[in-house]
């Protein structure tokens, strides 16, 4: 374990006030994720997966406890600061892609750059960068297509390209294959595995054990706590479609 910890969570809780009832979504979780790690978070619904994902993605703050992302304490940041951290350090991949329907593939990919505060990139360089990233996720000649003109698998590739455009420290994937058929899902998982092999840090939430099998470490959540934390012993898995279906 010589790598530096990209994510360092210490005893975080998340408590929601639902009328007069307090619901504890996260109940004292501590977790470290090293740079370059590929982590899968599993657990039944209501186990706190989504809450943990929201906090890891800096969309929400923990009620108590601390969260260091790339050395920065997220726990007490303002909404503005959180937005900037998301922009610089986090790339999201959502189950339902979350692309802007009226924008072209390349416009969708460029969106995080628009909100970038530092490091101005000229329009020409941006277009080239976005184009290259789209190519790297296997989308050739689709720059000007709108989401409605693309298959689910293609849309998710656009979303992955968008997650990569600002070179974030962390890629957060929330059920990335949940809306896809198994063939497209496998292709998406191969892209994620490929990114992992390039040294990217990936945290993926999934309820699908076959997807989790791509990760090198799997944690299980149960009632807002980590119930299991295993290194994946079956790696490397066979990368054939037959092995997954």
């Amino acid at each position, binding site marked *: 374990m010589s790598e530096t910890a990209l994510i360092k969570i210490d005893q975080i809780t998340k408590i929601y006030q639902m009328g007069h009832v307090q619901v504890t979504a996260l109940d004292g979780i501590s977790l470290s994720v090293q740079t370059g790690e590929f982590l899968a978070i599993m657990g039944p619904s209501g186990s706190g997966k989504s809450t943990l994902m929201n906090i890891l993605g800096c*969309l929400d703050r923990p009620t108590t406890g601390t969260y260091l992302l790339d050395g920065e304490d997220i726990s007490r940041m303002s*909404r*503005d600061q959180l937005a900037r951290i*998301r*922009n610089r350090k986090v790339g999201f991949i959502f189950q339902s892609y*979350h692309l*802007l329907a*009226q*924008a072209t593939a390349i416009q969708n990919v460029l969106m*995080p750059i628009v909100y970038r505060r530092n490091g101005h990139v000229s329009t020409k360089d941006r277009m080239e960068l976005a184009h290259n990233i789209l190519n790297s996720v296997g989308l050739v000649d689709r720059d000007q297509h709108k989401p409605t003109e693309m298959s689910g698998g293609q849309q998710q590739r656009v979303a992955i390209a968008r997650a990569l455009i600002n070179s974030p420290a962390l890629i957060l994937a929330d059920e990335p294959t949940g809306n896809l058929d198994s063939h497209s899902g496998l292709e998406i998982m191969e892209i994620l595995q490929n990114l992992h092999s390039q040294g990217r840090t990936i945290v993926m939430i999934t309820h699908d054990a076959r997807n989790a099998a791509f990760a090198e470490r799997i944690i299980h959540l149960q009632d807002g706590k980590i119930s299991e934390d295993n290194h994946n012993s079956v790696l490397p898995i066979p990368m054939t479609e037959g092995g997954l279906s």
Partner: protein
Amino acid sequence: MKLSELLHIAWEGISRNKLRALLTMLGVIIGVAAVIIMIAISAGTEATIAENIQNLGTNLLFVTQGMGAQMISRSAGMNTSFLSYDDAQAISESISGVSGVVVERDISELIKYGSTSIDSVSVIGTTPSYPQVRDVAQDSGRFITQNDINNSAKVVVLGYNTAQTLFGDQDPVGEKIYVGDVKLTVVGVMDKKGVVGSTDFDERVYIPLTLMFEKYTFSPFARIMGDPVGTILVQVANLDEMEKVTTQIQILLAKRHETTVDELPFTVRTQEDIIATQASTTAAFRDLLAWVAAVSLVVGGIGIMNIMLVSVTERTREIGIRQATGATPGDIRGQFLTEALLLSLTGGLIGVIVGIGGAWLFSEIGDMRTVVLPNSILLAFISAAIVGVFFGFYPANTAAKLDPIEALRHE
């Protein structure tokens, strides 16, 4: 975030629903157009007043038949008093500080010379001091003399344009023309004076007042009433004495017509009073437009606010996506404010075009002088911008305050 990017995103937002955007802008369009037309009318009126005062001088008093309630009751009792030539002479003879008195009785007639005729010419029956009091110079020949008055001479003096139309380059003096059914000898032509208020001096023709009574306005009734004159103009030598002379005229006329000053069926007004009356009609219209402008801008603003709130709700998921990829609350607020501003300014631009067109229409069809001031266009744009920012702020702030997690979940 660069301005061009903000504008681009805002434009994308608006252009997604062009008809809705246009309807939303309607209030602002009407408001801005009303602002421009209002100021154009106001500026046109002011320019006219300024010219009038300059052209007419300020030392004239207009004695006219009053239009008060007592006039109506007097008419009913057939005990009506009318201004007469004798009144004018009395004013001239017995009031000090008066440097000239002129009587004007006007009718409209067809005039004809050879095969050339002009319809509806303003024929003024008047007295010799007209050129002095009205400040019109003689171009050629002479004006009406006291001798012409005494003899009801069949002579006519032409306004400059009327002479040009009838005679061209030919000298009209000595020629005979028909004014109505009566053949008159042209004895003079007046110099150019131009249009003052609603009066075009160059289109008028002048005849002796007594000729007017005998040949044009003659009726037994008129004769019994002492041959009413339309207007008596009194020129006051000293501007400081305007009020004093006004009072003296009122007292004199009251005595002559056996009534009191309060019940006098005549009004004595300065030119400024008359111009002010003209101006007040346009002012009333202008005030109405000012209200239309204000109400339209507010209604337009509410329309923008309404449509922006709808837009925020419709695009909640988009807002969530933008927040997830790094848009700060300020970025989101900026995006929707820019959109509201773009709506109101586009509305403002269309409004300016409509306003300029409207001002032109008012002057062409409405016979109302309008001057579109560059400042009014600036003012209209600023009003539109203020409306956009003011009414766009609440929706933009609503968008900025959305929780990204909730927004992403929104269907």
